């Protein structure tokens, strides 16, 4: 598909783009002669760009999966308390445990799953409505709980050392990302994305009403849960190293559907590729535009929100509910 080619091209250009030695592109000649340039490209830029690819793929794929299995195009991975749980976990670690990258990441991933688990348990106990409605309600409640928790943590945080760190994490960034971090999240991302990718046609069935999906031989509850866990494994892994990068999961599947129709057989792989391209481009801007870095989450929100407005104003964007 032409998107794959585009991703490779964007990636290739991004390797040479940056602020060393001067803002703009680095020449191939410099890469072969300058020791400093080589070290920069291979030890800093490459892991960072590859992580941006994983980040964009995971968030966009998880967004596509969430939208399909909840039969609602306005849902995103931050939905079932996952993102808020991860933020809480990170802030919690920064204040009470350790500010080391590892502690923050593990804590964020754990709380992301805790958010999902709480939403799930709460949804099972809600007394009315269909399963999807109950999950949505539970997700809203759990997200609110965790975000007020984040508020409390910010309030008690040391304003000089801890608060900036929390804020920085909440804004999302790929700054100072290294190979070990990339390798650490790679397995989780690959597993999560592979499960979703293999089920890409079946996801269509799960976008239908429960009884219809059942009548077509699916196990709606079990298969949705499997996909949900796969999506959250991939997302919590990338969130744990990159912080909160919002809007990718909501916007990218919309663009993919605009290009390829509704069938998840095409929407899911297209979302992964477009998500990767989007994340790499945003990260290019984040690191090359100004001498000081712009947090990635700010850029994705800014650009994502702008694209969303344009999408909404286009006539075919009508969403039926």
């Amino acid at each position: 598909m032409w998107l794959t080619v585009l991703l490779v091209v964007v990636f290739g250009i991004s390797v040479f783009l940056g602020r060393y030695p001067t803002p703009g592109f680095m020449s191939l000649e410099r890469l072969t002669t300058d020791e400093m340039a080589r070290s920069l490209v291979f030890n800093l830029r490459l892991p960072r760009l590859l992580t941006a690819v994983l980040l964009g793929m995971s968030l966009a794929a998880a967004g596509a999966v969430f939208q399909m299995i909840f039969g609602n195009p306005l849902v995103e991975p931050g939905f079932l308390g996952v993102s808020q749980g991860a933020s809480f976990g990170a802030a919690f670690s920064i204040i009470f445990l350790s500010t080391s990258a590892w502690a923050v990441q593990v804590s964020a991933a754990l709380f992301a799953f805790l958010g999902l688990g709480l939403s799930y348990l709460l949804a099972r106990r809600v007394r009315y409505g269909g399963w999807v409605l109950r999950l949505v309600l539970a997700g809203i409640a759990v997200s609110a709980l965790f975000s007020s928790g984040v508020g409390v943590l910010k309030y008690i945080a040391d304003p000089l050392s801890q608060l900036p760190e929390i804020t920085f994490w909440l804004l999302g960034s790929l700054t100072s990302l290294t190979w070990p971090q990339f390798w650490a999240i790679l397995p989780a991302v690959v597993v999560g994305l592979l499960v979703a990718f293999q089920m890409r046609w079946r996801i269509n069935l799960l976008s239908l009403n429960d009884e219809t999906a059942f009548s077509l031989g699916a196990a709606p509850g079990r298969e949705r849960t499997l996909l949900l866990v796969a999506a959250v494994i991939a997302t919590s892994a990338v969130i744990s190293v990159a912080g909160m990068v919002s809007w990718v999961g909501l916007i990218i599947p919309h663009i993919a559907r605009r290009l390829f129709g509704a069938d998840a057989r095409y929407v899911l792989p297209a979302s992964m590729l477009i998500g990767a391209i989007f994340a790499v481009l945003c990260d290019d801007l984040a690191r090359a535009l100004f001498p000081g870095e712009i947090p990635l989450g700010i850029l994705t929100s800014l650009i994502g929100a702008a694209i969303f407005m344009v999408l909404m104003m286009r006539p075919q964007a009508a969403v039926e509910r």
Partner: protein
Amino acid sequence: MSATPLLQFEQLRFGYPQTARPVLQDFHLEIAPGTVTAILGPNGAGKTTLLHLALGWLQPQAGLIRLERQPVASYSRRALGQWLGLVPQSEHIAFEYSLLEFVLLGRAPYLPSLAMPEKADYEIAQSALEQVGLAALQHRSILSLSGGERQLVLIARALAQQPRLLLLDEPTSHLDLGNKGRLVHLLRELQGRGVTILFTTHEPEVAAALATHLVLMQKGQVLKTGLLAEVFTAHDLTRLYQLPVSVVDLDGRKVALWT
């Protein structure tokens, strides 16, 4: 009924957890293979619930449902999907599937979990769209269709499923007169190919035009069941709807009128 029943409901009791009164109670019914059975009954009689029970989607609190003598619960989901097709009354569709992509989903029970539909599946889906007269629109978005056309697409999806027992929940509720007639012909043709059909309806004429057997359902119980000619009477329909109904014979077809 002489032959081995295809589908049996035995002393069924079912209630939804939120409501005190059971939806179905002491429900007993047998469907013979190759028949077309219409279920008539006032709103809230439990017709849709009955279809969901037959499907295996809902489980009865008491009693048993058998499919060719075996309990429905003993079939795998995939086997049930090949056995039974459901045409819901309407369906929430959130995404802009093309008609072909949507009808193709009917092939799911025949495909392993991770497989993609193949050429043969596409051909079956296309022929299903032809049968409901929508082949020309196969690349159009399903959300651009009218309510009646969407109902035909739901029927096409069930046709692509190639079930032996077809369950339809008020299949004519959104159809205009022409499409209603076409659907009746289509379902008769399916019966000719050996498909057993069970459908609910609020339109006695549709039942009279299509069904071989009739079930009158009231408050979760069978009021009367039997051959169409025995049950489609002014007396029984009046009892069912609790409103004076007369039955008129028009060139061999029966029509129910309220008076």
